[in-house]
């Protein structure tokens, strides 16, 4: 056995030593892992703070996640409520306030296995859509958990398309109340987290009807459960929507409202309000309703979606240096499966992708913060770009994180199918992100709409480029680009400028094609909407290419800023190259299509790509260590820091209730089945 473990580990008897197969991977360090951890955390002080929170949480047995895999839905829910309540008590003692980094790190440390997560979403919506008086009234109640709130938008029959929602809020000027009502079965609110069993209040999105006119979607605070005994209030039917693929700890709920009356003050009124006499006043853009969704999407990236793929990479790559299979020479020893080219080809692009996404989401967050304060002050100029960027990036990140997480799971062979690997839970959780907070196809199309509209504006209907101002992220649409890629050999493809330009070329071409296709259809008589639907497959491809371009460009720009960290810059540069080249190869048809790349060049890309796999292979374990997840947080028998995979797997399996409890099926069914055999003996 190797050297002692110096990281937070699970304290099993065998985990005092690191497995030599993983220790040897850490022996030569081409870069300082701790520095990379600091960079990913956004500064050494954040790393220190995060680790402090982790040690508080891990030293408290109340927070243990180890029995999660053996629990029923009911038990998981109760455990999550218990943990959340316990965390709140500790937060109070430690002085961690709502929205503080400490609570953010607690959430990360506990893998979000906490109840009342939508409570925070409610608070954020309140702060972006509520007036100052409303915030002053409701925020303290939330912060002290005097109320538990959720956000209820989706309905049984209606999802991403906001205008289709059926729930109604009709203003009654006589009593100065709104009457909130679910007119049909399909209007039943469906899916909101914490709604099923926990929430006392819901922020309900409903069609506002006042003075006989429909004014579209608005948000209303509706009390749904008694603050005395937690029973549903009159007119309220509420419950849990039943078992799901993942999120077993959350009570996603349904809600039917039967003419429930709420005071006029319960409509959130930063951007629109109803006066006592029923007059409707509006002070915002049409898109303002999307603001809460933009807030949520941006938060989700770093808080929820990207860590899933990070963890999957940690587990699969660590396991791949412990697992041995076959040999590379006759009668030679079995080799680590990470030394197989096919295994590298599966895992290393995922590692590169998750680094790309980390930097992409961090920069989107910065852009968001700079635009957000302006929006709250009713300057909406950045909103369309912010909306388009956040929609497309959410769709791309969740799509590829799901694919990557599932790939990592399958790359662990049979053991990846065991819940004890931690991977099934990651997959079934990240997959939800492809449909929640905006179904991905719909989101890509929103981005495409922004791209196509701007393209048409910039190029005019006659195709002449007029000098209009395009938002920064799409400025490349008016930049003249090369018709052929100048690369001559494999090494040329390791230049950031070259592959960024290649993606710009493809994205611009696909956006152009999609805009032209739309125009052609309209010229042949179709109206805009019909033409739009008939070109959506093209729009989808254009939006995806645009997102690739943004992510590649962002990664290269991030690297430029790391010039004081040459060793880290070098290792991240390889990941950036791999990410870019892998994306070119998986979409090679788009690059070959107009002859931008020749067949020979595509072969050169492939050569460069395969060479990179070998280089990154050497640093693979260190690059996963840099995510700095504790073993408690990973909760994986395959992915622990010490590499003692098999002992842990055997030990954990024995704790399964199927082994610790009796087997009633034997007495009831198996024994009678075997009876005839005994009589013959």
């Amino acid at each position, binding site marked *: 056995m190797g050297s002692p473990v110096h990281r937070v580990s699970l304290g099993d008897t065998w985990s005092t030593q690191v497995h030599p197969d993983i220790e040897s991977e850490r022996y030569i360090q081409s870069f300082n892992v701790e520095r990379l951890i600091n960079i990913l955390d956004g500064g050494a002080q954040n790393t220190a703070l995060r680790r402090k929170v982790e040690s508080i949480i891990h030293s408290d047995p109340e927070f243990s996640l180890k029995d999660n895999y053996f629990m029923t839905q009911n038990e998981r829910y109760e455990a999550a409520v218990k943990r959340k309540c316990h965390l709140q008590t500790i937060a109070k003692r430690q002085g961690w306030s709502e929205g503080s980094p400490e609570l953010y790190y607690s959430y990360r440390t506990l893998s979000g296995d906490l109840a009342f997560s939508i409570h925070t979403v409610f608070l954020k919506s309140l702060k972006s859509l509520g007036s100052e008086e409303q915030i002053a009234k409701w925020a303290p109640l939330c912060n002290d958990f005097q109320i538990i709130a959720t956000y209820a938008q989706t309905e049984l029959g209606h999802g991403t398309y906001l205008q289709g929602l059926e729930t109604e809020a009709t203003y009654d000027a006589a009593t100065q109340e709104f009457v909130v009502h679910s007119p049909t079965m399909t209007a039943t609110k469906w899916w909101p987290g914490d709604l099923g069993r926990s929430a006392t209040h819901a922020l309900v999105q409903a069609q506002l009807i006042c003075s006989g006119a429909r004014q579209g979607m608005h948000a209303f605070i509706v009390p749904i459960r008694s603050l005395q005994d937690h029973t549903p209030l009159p007119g309220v039917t509420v419950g849990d929507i*039943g078992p799901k693929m993942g999120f077993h700890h959350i009570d996603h709920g349904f809600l039917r409202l039967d003419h429930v009356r709420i005071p006029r003050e319960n409509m959130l009124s930063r951007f629109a309000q109803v006066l006592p006499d029923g007059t409707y006043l509006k002070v915002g853009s049409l898109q303002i309703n999307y603001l809460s969704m933009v807030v949520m999407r941006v938060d989700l990236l770093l808080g929820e979606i990207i860590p899933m793929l990070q963890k999957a990479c940690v587990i699969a790559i660590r396991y791949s240096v412990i697992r041995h299979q076959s040999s590379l020479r006759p009668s030679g020893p079995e080799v680590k499966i990470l030394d197989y080219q096919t295994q590298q080809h599966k895992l290393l692009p995922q590692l590169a992708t998750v680094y790309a996404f980390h930097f992409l989401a961090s920069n989107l967050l910065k852009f968001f913060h700079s635009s957000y304060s302006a929006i709250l002050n009713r300057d909406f100029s950045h909103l369309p770009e912010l909306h388009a960027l956040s929609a497309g990036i959410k769709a791309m990140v969740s799509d590829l994180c799901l694919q990557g997480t599932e790939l990592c799971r399958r790359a662990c062979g049979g053991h990846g199918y*065991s819940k004890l690997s931690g991977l099934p839970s990651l997959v079934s959780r990240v997959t939800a992100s492809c449909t929640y907070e905006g179904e991905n196809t719909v989101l890509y199309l929103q981005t495409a709409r922004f791209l196509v509209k701007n393209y048409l504006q910039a190029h005019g209907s006659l195709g002449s480029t007029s000098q209009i101002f395009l938002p920064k992220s799409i400025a490349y649409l008016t930049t003249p680009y090369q018709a052929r890629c100048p690369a001559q050999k494999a090494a040329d493809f390791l230049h950031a400028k070259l592959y960024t330009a290649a993606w710009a070329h493809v994205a611009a071409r696909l956006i152009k094609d999609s805009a032209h296709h739309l125009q052609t259809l309209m010229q042949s008589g179709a109206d805009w909407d019909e033409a739009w639907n*008939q070109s*959506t497959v093209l729009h989808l491809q254009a939006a995806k290419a645009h997102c690739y371009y943004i992510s590649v460009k962002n990664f290269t720009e991030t690297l430029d800023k790391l010039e004081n960290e040459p060793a880290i810059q070098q290792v991240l540069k390889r990941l950036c190259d791999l990410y870019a080249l892998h994306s070119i190869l998986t979409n090679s048809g788009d690059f070959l299509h107009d002859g931008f790349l020749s*067949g020979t060049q*595509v072969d050169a890309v492939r050569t460069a790509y395969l060479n990179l796999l070998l280089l990154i292979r050497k640093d693979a374990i260190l690059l996963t260590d840099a995510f700095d997840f504790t073993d408690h947080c990973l909760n994986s028998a395959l992915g622990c820091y010490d590499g003692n995979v098999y002992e842990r797997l055997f030990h954990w399996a024995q704790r399964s209730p199927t082994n610790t409890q009796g087997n009633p*099926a034997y007495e009831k069914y198996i024994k009678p*089945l075997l009876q*005839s055999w005994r009589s013959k003996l």
Partner: protein
Amino acid sequence: MNQDLRREREAASFNPELLTHVLDGSPENTRRRREIENLILNDPDFQHEDLNFLTRSQRYEVAVRKSANMVKKMRDFGIADPEEIMWFKKVHLVNFVEPVGLNYSMFIPTLLNQGTTAQQEKWLLSSKGLQIIGTYAQTEMGHGTHLRGLETTATYDPETQEFILNSPTVTSIKWWPGGLGKTSNHAIVLAQLITKGKCYGLHAFIVPIREIGTHKPLPGITVGDIGPKFGYDEMDNGYLKMDNYRIPRENMLMKYAQVKPDGTYVKPVSNKLTYGTMVFVRSFLVGEAARSLSKACTIAIRYSAVRHQSEIKPGEPEPQILDFQTQQYKLFPLLATAYAFQFVGAYMKETYHRINEDIGHGDLSELPELHALTAGLKAFTSWTTNAAIEACRMACGGHGYSHCSGLPNIYVTFTPTCTFEGENTVMMLQTARFLMKSYDQVHSGKLVCGMVSYLNDLPTQRIQPQQVAVWPTVVDIDSPDSLTEAYKLRAARLVEIAAKNLQNEVIRRESKEVAWNLTSVDLVRASEAHCHYVVVKLFSEKLLKIQDKSIHTVLRNLCLLYCLYGISQKAGDFLQGSIMTESQITQVNQRIKELLTAVRPDAVALVDAFDFKDVTLGSVLGRYDGNVYEHLFEWAKKSPLNKAEVHESYYKHLKPLQSKL
């Protein structure tokens, strides 16, 4: 019935019943299958409870009860034909997951393939009647697909004429076998045979593991369940550790290799025959991929006809989501794939039976190709299906994530197919090995036959992988035959590139194995292209056998869609190989959109033709009558969290918290 679905069915251009006959193989097969299904549906003993609301232990118990009940019923009904047994299980078990399943799928076939007549006499009858319950224990905790790496040992002791079985390390513990954890009392164990101090490699042994009468593990045996998994909740996948555990000499399966009483080892005549079971299981899995994907398509397409959302034109009512081009683009290529795999599955079954007869007559000539083809097609169809089921699930939006949709269950039940019975990448590389061998054979002047015969043309075509080659054909994108040719050229080109790259590496590297490893990404690509060609070829050949004109038209559209969609996804390969031009790729993309429109009116009828009973689908979204929302609400009310109006955690945790803060 839901109005939307009624309209869809009335508007279909063909009679789905006729297509069902095609899928079943004949009207007679359809009739008999339904007869069997009705036996179950009309049987008062048959209760279908919703497993989604049960704990894992409860689900295991239900599955054991059903298994026991099923054995009895099949005997009562006189169902013995393997095909009919499968139909029976399809409805009875819904997911085919049964703790005693391995007894039939692995224990008995292995006994038949590898046991002597005497051994078959001793074990077969009692295992067929489930008087003993067997399983098949091959995989170990540290070793999977690579058989030679297994560590379990069986050492012969001539003194007592016994084998001594041992699990020498943690990694050698048998891990994963179905039914091993709690149910079985016997296992066929694969172990390294050691006799007279020498190791002779892997052999199969029948090992009693639990005591008859008490079901307790026998002394020297440690056995249990490996814990919760992604799916297969009903299955007790198990572990098995053996410590100096003795079994009689007669328990080694000795049809081929033998150990004499004095410990002398007698070699088998041919080792190819042990492939038999694997080939059978893998060809069965191809059909399983088709069935799982067909189920997923049925659910997603019916739901997409019922669900309305958003608007195409402002002011008009919300359209069915199936009218959105993006939804059609998500689902119809998958529907076409489901049909393609149905036909491939049927072909694999026929071929297996045919070659099995040859083997019976001592003719092993086709076995290597069949082995290579089943390995590759198992990987190809399961990878595709895996992604396709997920795509169907996500096409149902949020509701697809709920267990009420049935889709998560189909997914988690299907996805292990990618790793079990041979991990897919390893399978692809086995196919590649065969392709490389055939390639070498052609280059040494010998012709090859079967599905790889296209390699015979390579030397005359002088394909230069990186230059524009002159292809013998011009692709007609409206002809399945011509498209099959295009796929053939792609396969030939990628096989050639892989072969050349391999040769280059062999020159540069220290060993063939290292060279193989450094070419393996190319090799997998070549195998995929080969399998893709085989699927396209089988689909277009199937069209020739369709008599009915309306059925032919609709299947031809699906076949074209399958071919063209594949080209569009792999456009790089077709462009780089100069198999198609840029303008042809543009035409392909345009034609795909036309085909989506052509398939649209028949989409619901096309999934109806799969003829799944609602019970088998296990989906609220995929109900035949389309009454989705009402049943969704009823289903949710049954959730365990809804048992009490106020959940107990309110009193335990929430109330105390509110008073504390």
